[in-house]
Every structure is written in structure tokens, then in C-alpha cells.
């Protein structure tokens, strides 16, 4: 049995070829977890080698949902890629829209009006709320609490999706942001409805905490499980709540100050141990911080234009050049790298998928733990296969 620290050097990673040539006299057992397994969040497979109940080798296998999103985007116009970005991380389509719009704005030098910036912040933070709530729900599901916590989370998520539907016309595939602003203005009464939802949300968090926080089974299953040391987290390019649960203070909202995030007063919660419990707790705390941002944004927002007048719907051709834009999506750093050659289609369109890159350290976190814990550790990474495979 090896520990996660030893495996932090890439030299410890050998190809899977040797794992398939296991000496069958030994106690090692190779199993294939997935691709259609309820715990794999979609079509994802892990080739796991077990020594008894302990994991000695784990190789993730991707590509079941691969559709070459990047190639599709390179053969259509800039505008036509926005609906496809919805389908990357389909839980957080508004964050994806924002990341893409931000990159194109960098590429073409567009200015976003203030009201549009506020709408973007509100949309992104609501997305974070519903993503974190359902992630925790799924995590509990994987520990065996089938249904109850997930339904509580989905009840709240529904309220936020209702807001999205009233604003964008769709609950999940929002296709809302445009280069230099947003597509439509807020409908009448939307702000009041949003304020009401935001004001009621802490009650849900309290209820959720009393349901779970002191639950002995939860504590036993999460504390000290799947520890990710901060050094390995940085080395592995891990971003988002997982990184901060390991105690690394890196939140792109604070580092890059994109949009208008410097106007809001919020904290970045940090974990201490980097175990499953910290990753669960970080998401609970981040929801409370998101509520703070929402509360400020919903009261500061003022009327005004919602799109840069220079932005064009048809015939959009940025000057040749390249740009990399990134935002703090609920899963981690979501970036878009674009190269324009002056034509209506991007020459290169690249998505930096946080879900895929956060999986780099999955094996290190799982080595030595039991198979049942592997499922839980995998659940805290919070991946969406639409984004992993693209």
C-alpha cells in the first residue's frame, strides 16, 4: 500500500499496461468501475486495482462523451459557440457563458456596461449556489443517504432555476451572455423575486446543516478521508473549492478581479486538512459568501444599457490576435483560449476544463483508501462529464 505523498511524483505513474498484466496468483483484483455506474456522475470509467478492499492503482478513462466541442467551435462563428458552451458544464451554463464572453471581450476589446456586469455577477453567483447545493446532495447520495439530502438541495435548486427561466428562457441551457453584455434585460419583477429567493436561502442552509453537520455517519465517512496536501494540489493544477479546502488561498475572483468583483465585500473560506469533510464544508461556506455578494449586488444594481453598442450580432470579426480569459466557475478555473485570424470563425478555440484537470490528482487521493471511500472522494471533486470529455 502506498501513500498519497509518495505518488505525488509523476515517476510513480506508469502506464496502465502493466496493470493489465497482473499476476493472477496474487490477491490483486482489477475491476472496472463505470462507465454506467451511479457514482460516476455520467459516463466515466475508473480502472481500479484492489488489494483486498484497498486501492493500489486507479486510472481514469475518459472520452465516452467526447464530441470535439473545440473542432465544432472552430467551424462555426463566434456567436454560434455560445449555446455549445452551455453544454460543457451543464449544471453551470451561465458561468460558462461568462467565461467565453470574457475571453472574446479580451480578444476584441469590448467594454461591458455596468448593469450587464451586475447581471453577470448575480447570474454567476446564483449558479454557484445551485451547483454547490446539488454537489453536496450528490455527495450524500454517494455515502448512502439515498435521496433525502439530494431532494432538499434540488428543492432549492428549483427556485434558482425558476429565476434562470424567467431571465433567460431556459432552465439549464441559458445561452444568455453576449460579447459586450447580456442578451435581454431583467424582466419586470425579477429583482424582487431574486431578493426573496436569496433572503430565504440561509434558512435552507441552516436546515441542511442541522440535517447533516453533526451526523455521526457523515463525520466518520469524511474526516481524514482522501487528504490532498496543498503542495500536491498546486502541482496538480487543482482549482476551485478543492484547492481552497487544502488551504491554498487562490480565488480568481480575488486574484484577477474580473468583472466588478472588487466592489463586493466577501471572504474566501479556506480549509485546513484538505480531506473530504473540508471540501464539503468549503462548499457550505462558499454558499454563504455567495449570498453576501448577491445581497450586495441585488441592492446596488442600477438601470442602464446592457450591451456594448460596438458589439455586433451578425458579422462579428475580431482582429487577428489571441486571448486567454478565465473565471472562477463553481468547479474551478474555467478558461477559454481563443486565436482569431480575422475571419468570422475562431482559428483556435480551447476550453480549459476545470473538471478534467482536477481529476489529475484523483489517483493520489484514492491510493490506500477503500473502494467505498473512492466513490466519496470522487464525489467531492465535483465533475461534470460534459466538461471533462468536451
Amino acid at each position, binding site marked *: 500500500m502506498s501513500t498519497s505523498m509518495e505518488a505525488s511524483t509523476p515517476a510513480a505513474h506508469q502506464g496502465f499496461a502493466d496493470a493489465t498484466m497482473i499476476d493472477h496468483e496474487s490477491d490483486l483484483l482489477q475491476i472496472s468501475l463505470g462507465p454506467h455506474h451511479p457514482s460516476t456522475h455520467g459516463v466515466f470509467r475508473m480502472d481500479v486495482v484492489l488489494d483486498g478492499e484497498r486501492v493500489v492503482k486507479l486510472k481514469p478513462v475518459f472520452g465516452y462523451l467526447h464530441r470535439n466541442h473545440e473542432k465544432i467551435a472552430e467551424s462555426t462563428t463566434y456567436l454560434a459557440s455560445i449555446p455549445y458552451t452551455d453544454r460543457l458544464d451543464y449544471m453551470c451554463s451561465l458561468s460558462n457563458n461568462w467565461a467565453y464572453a470574457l475571453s472574446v471581450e479580451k480578444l476584441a*476589446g469590448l467594454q461591458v456596461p455596468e448593469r450587464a456586469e451586475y447581471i453577470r455577477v448575480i447570474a454567476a453567483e446564483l449558479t454557484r449556489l445551485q451547483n454547490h447545493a446539488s454537489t453536496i446532495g450528490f455527495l450524500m447520495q454517494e455515502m448512502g443517504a439515498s435521496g433525502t439530502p439530494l431532494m432538499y438541495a434540488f428543492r432549492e435548486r428549483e427556485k434558482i432555476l425558476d429565476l434562470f427561466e424567467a431571465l433567460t428562457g431556459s432552465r439549464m441551457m441559458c445561452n444568455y451572455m453576449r460579447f459586450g453584455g447580456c442578451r435581454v434585460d431583467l424582466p419586470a419583477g425579477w429583482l424582487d423575486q431574486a431578493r426573496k429567493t436569496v433572503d430565504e436561502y440561509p434558512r435552507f442552509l441552516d436546515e441542511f446543516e442541522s440535517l447533516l453537520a453533526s451526523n455521526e455517519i457523515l463525520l466518520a465517512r469524511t474526516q481524514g478521508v482522501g487528504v490532498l496536501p496543498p503542495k500536491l494540489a498546486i502541482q496538480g493544477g487543482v482549482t476551485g473549492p478543492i484547492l481552497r479546502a487544502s488551504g491554498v488561498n487562490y480565488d480568481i475572483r480575488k486574484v484577477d478581479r474580473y468583472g466588478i468583483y472588487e466592489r463586493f465585500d466577501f471572504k474566501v473560506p479556506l480549509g485546513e486538512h484538505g480531506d473530504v469533510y473540508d471540501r464539503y464544508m468549503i462548499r457550505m461556506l462558499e454558499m454563504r459568501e455567495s449570498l453576501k455578494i448577491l445581497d450586495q449586488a441585488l441592492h446596488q444594481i442600477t438601470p442602464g444599457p446592457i450591451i456594448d453598442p460596438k458589439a455586433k450580432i451578425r458579422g462579428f470579426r475580431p482582429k487577428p490576435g489571441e486571448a486567454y480569459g478565465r473565471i472562477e466557475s463553481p468547479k474551478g478555473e474555467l*478558461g477559454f483560449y481563443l486565436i482569431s485570424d480575422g475571419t468570422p470563425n475562431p482559428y483556435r478555440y480551447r476550453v480549459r476544463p476545470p473538471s478534467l484537470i482536477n481529476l489529475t490528482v484523483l489517483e493520489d487521493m484514492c491510493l490506500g483508501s477503500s473502494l467505498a471511500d473512492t466513490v466519496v472522494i470522487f464525489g467531492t471533486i465535483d465533475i461534470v462529464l460534459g466538461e471533462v470529455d468536451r
Partner: protein
Amino acid sequence: MNLEEIKSTLEAAIPGCSPQIVTNGSPSGQHSLLLDREHAFVAAMFLRDDPTLCLDYCSNVTGLDWLDTETSEKVKVTQLVDGVEKEVDEVRKTRTPGYLEAVYHLYSMQKKHGPLVVRLRTENRTDSVHLPSFTPIWRSAEFQEREVFDLFGIIFDGHPDLRRILMWDEFEDHPMRKDYVEPDDYEYEPTPHDAVLKKALEHRNRISTPDGQGA
């Protein structure tokens, strides 16, 4: 530290290293640093370990495909025409071989600065497509370099586990290359037009069934 300073620091620290600055025309102003293949690994190690730069976080790794380009220019040459020396226009075609490129976006989590865009170029697009792998320096490049290998066909020397990641192992081509030809696997679509229609017609001619669908 700006790009010029990083360039001169690298030149001073690593003998023989000659990074070039690649300028970027867009308003983003993200210029990049082109490293030569021989010194790239040492230079990347330096970028990570240097206490002022401290680029400990490799955010994004991606590939690029630049096709061969052909430029033609008119030159005046003196030639013997019917025994007399004359100035004749001649069109000279220069073929610039294309190359594959790997682009790395580096940030510092400790110092909270970045991005530093680092580029590496292969010699050509066909037979000499090797680049040093940065996975031993930044683990986050592991899956992303595999992806670049899979979709662009750049071979990263020193990568611990270089296999296809998104396409299946038996797949042969590299789909993100600009000259990639899709296989002939047409499926029924009720409203084919443009490229799909062409493909549908080609497919129908090939299998020559009298089925009227797809026109």
C-alpha cells in the same frame, strides 16, 4: 517582471537559451515567449523555481496547428533570351513549412501573478513532432499533454503516460489538425445541407442505393 526582463533573465541563467518574444495583435496584450526545444525543459524548471517568478501553477496547455504556407513573389532575373540578355519577371514560390505548437499558460499561486504564455514549436507537422514534456515540472500538464498528443499528434518526450485520452486507442488520425479528413460514416439526417448534404450525396454514390432520403 515584464516579458523583456524574463527573456533576459532566462538568457543570463541558462547558457545557450534564446527565447523569442511573440507579439500578439489583440487588445488583450498577452504576448508570449517562444522557447527553443533544446533548452525548454531547463528554462521551464527555472521559471517554476526562480524565487521572483515562482510560476508554480501551469493552468492551460494546448496545441496549435499551423499549416504549410506558400507565398509567391515576383522577382526580376536576367536571362539569355535568343542570345540577348534580358530582364524577365519570374514568379518565385517560397514554401514555409508548417509546424505544431504547444502553448502553456503559467501563473503563480504564491505571488498571484500571471499569465506567462510559453510556446514551443515542433520542426514540422509530419515526421519531427517531438517536444519536451513539462509534466515532470507541472503535474497539471499530464492530462492536457495527453490531450494535445491525442488531438494534434505532438509527441511529448518524457511524459510518464503518453496515451490517447479522448479518442479510443485504435484511432489513427489527429482530429484537431486543420487538414483532418472526417471518415465516411454518414448517418441519416432529415435536413442535410451544405457540407452535410455533400457528404450525404457522396456517401449515397458510394453505396449506390436507390434510397431517396437525404436529397
